[in-house]
């Protein structure tokens, strides 16, 4: 009964309109999860040492990758448009939040080593 309660919507229409709509959702959900993981990075903690499995890419690099990927993959834009989107959006966000509202968003591993300013 528990399983049925979880999977049966009480309505006339079904949960999904075929596999197409399921893929439409997955296309959005999977990159979103990867995006969140990319911002945070993955660290493996043992008692005496912390291994970095995936270095933290920080907010700005991840956003550039994420928005660029969408423009390239779903939008099918020309490559310079993709590049422009990937560059312009993070810069605008940096200007509004980091400078305007003084919100410090997560920085990348390159920031920690002093290679990049974000």
């Amino acid at each position: 009964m528990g399983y049925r309660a979880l999977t049966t919507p009480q309505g006339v229409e079904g949960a999904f309109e075929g596999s197409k709509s399921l893929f439409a959702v997955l296309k959005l959900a999977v990159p979103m999860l990867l995006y969140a993981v990319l911002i945070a990075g993955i660290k493996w903690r043992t008692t005496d040492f912390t291994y970095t499995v995936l270095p933290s890419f920080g907010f700005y690099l991840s956003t550039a990758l994420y928005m660029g990927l969408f423009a390239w993959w779903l939008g099918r834009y020309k490559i310079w448009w993709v590049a422009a989107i990937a560059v312009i959006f993070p810069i605008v966000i940096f200007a509004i939040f980091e400078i305007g509202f003084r919100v410090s968003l997560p920085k990348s591993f390159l920031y920690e080593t002093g290679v990049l300013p974000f």
Partner: protein
Amino acid sequence: MEVFGDLAGGFATALHPINVAMLFVAVVLGLVIGVLPGLGGTSGVAILLPITVFIAHGSLPGSDTTTAIIFLAGIYWGALFGGVITSILFNIPGEPWAVVLLFDGFPLAKRLGKPGLALASSFVSSFLGALVSTILFTFFALPIALKALEFGPAELFAVFVLSFATLIGLGAEAPMKSLAMLALGLLLAAVGFDTITGEQRLNFGQVSLLSGISFVPVTIGLFGIGEILASAEEQGIGYVENISARLGLTDVFEAIRELRKRLRLVLSNAIIGFFFGVLPGHGATAASFLGYGLARQYSSNKENFGKGEISGIMGPQSAADAAGVASLVPMITLGIPGSPTSAVIMAGLFIWGLQPGPVLFIQHPDFVWGLIASIYLGHLLTFILCLLAVPLLAMIMRVPYAIITPFIVVISIIGSYSLNNSILDVFITVIFGLIGYWLRKMKYPLAPLVVALVLGDSTERELRKALIAGHGSPLYFFNSGLSTVLLLAAVVLVLIPLVRTIRARRRGVAPPAAVAHP
């Protein structure tokens, strides 16, 4: 009349340059949020909530908590108006309360070729509905608050229980589902520290869960990300047709003439919408459906409904906007949100360091009356902007999906991160986004979850204070007449769906859906 003096003081606050400027920004943002199909009023307010922390603490010259509430409420007003534009022009509702506009708004625009008249009718009736509701707000708020100041823990707990009961009894979805969501919300609210003894609980030994599950990341996930995922399915199915979005002065005058013919309907719907909005629950969405039903029932030409009848636009619109405004009334006076959006605004008050409820009227009269005055100004501003900027707003629909969708995700993640600078909150947002999407699919209502999450701590505190005062005896709640009545009313409300089902069974028909809710 003391009210007029207070209101005048409120206008003095609301007309402060920074407040007017932020109201303008908020209304424009709200209109944009309203037009975008993947972003609703609740998620829009939730995403922008972290920014208001900086506004409230004076990041902008001259800004304070009043500026912050004016900003948040302004987004709501913009979204209330903006959601209908895409319903009427493109047959795509921008907001849940704009769904009814598909019945008559779109046919009037498309089939009868009068998009300008359809839009103008919607705006004038929204404005009138909101105005009526704001006037009622102005006169009702202070008496309710003064009464509420006399409440002890028993009465307060009874009020909370009553508001939970309305969510179950009057909700649009199955009552058991509302109950389940309510329980989940209370459970999530219990994570962290015990409110009375300060003991750790439900954190599973995790230090990061000690501060509890924050409200804002959960709401951004449930509403923002959940909505984006849900609208992803409709991409490619919907087709944006090119309708001229021009709105001329002649349309406005024609709409006002039509409004005068339907003045009784619009005014009575506004008043009904107000009282409906005061009840905790679905706020504007449920009121808009109710308003449509009433407009149809009392119309002399029922057969015109669904074909572009103007009453089918004006009836729901005035009720929806009235309910939207009214949902702030219990939030400000009792500390109980009337709708999910006002639950988010209430969370904002907590974060800025204010205690929503009757004490606000005593401790921060500038804040309360500034807010009330800004509702008048905000709606006037929204109305004017709508009349001027419809073509611009309609253009937002042309922004490609591949850009706008990830952008909303990015903004949501900034919103959830920046409140506590916590990466855990980002994951909470993403996970609750998936949960919210699945709940939407399975037709679980989100309002009880959100309301229970924001009220959980205060409900528990009042319950335990009352039990301590009564030396552990639950009979303490029946010592006062008021709390007895409120608790009994709560029981009656919960029993409504049950009685309805039994009566329907007796007649041998299937139980009816509570409210027509697509």
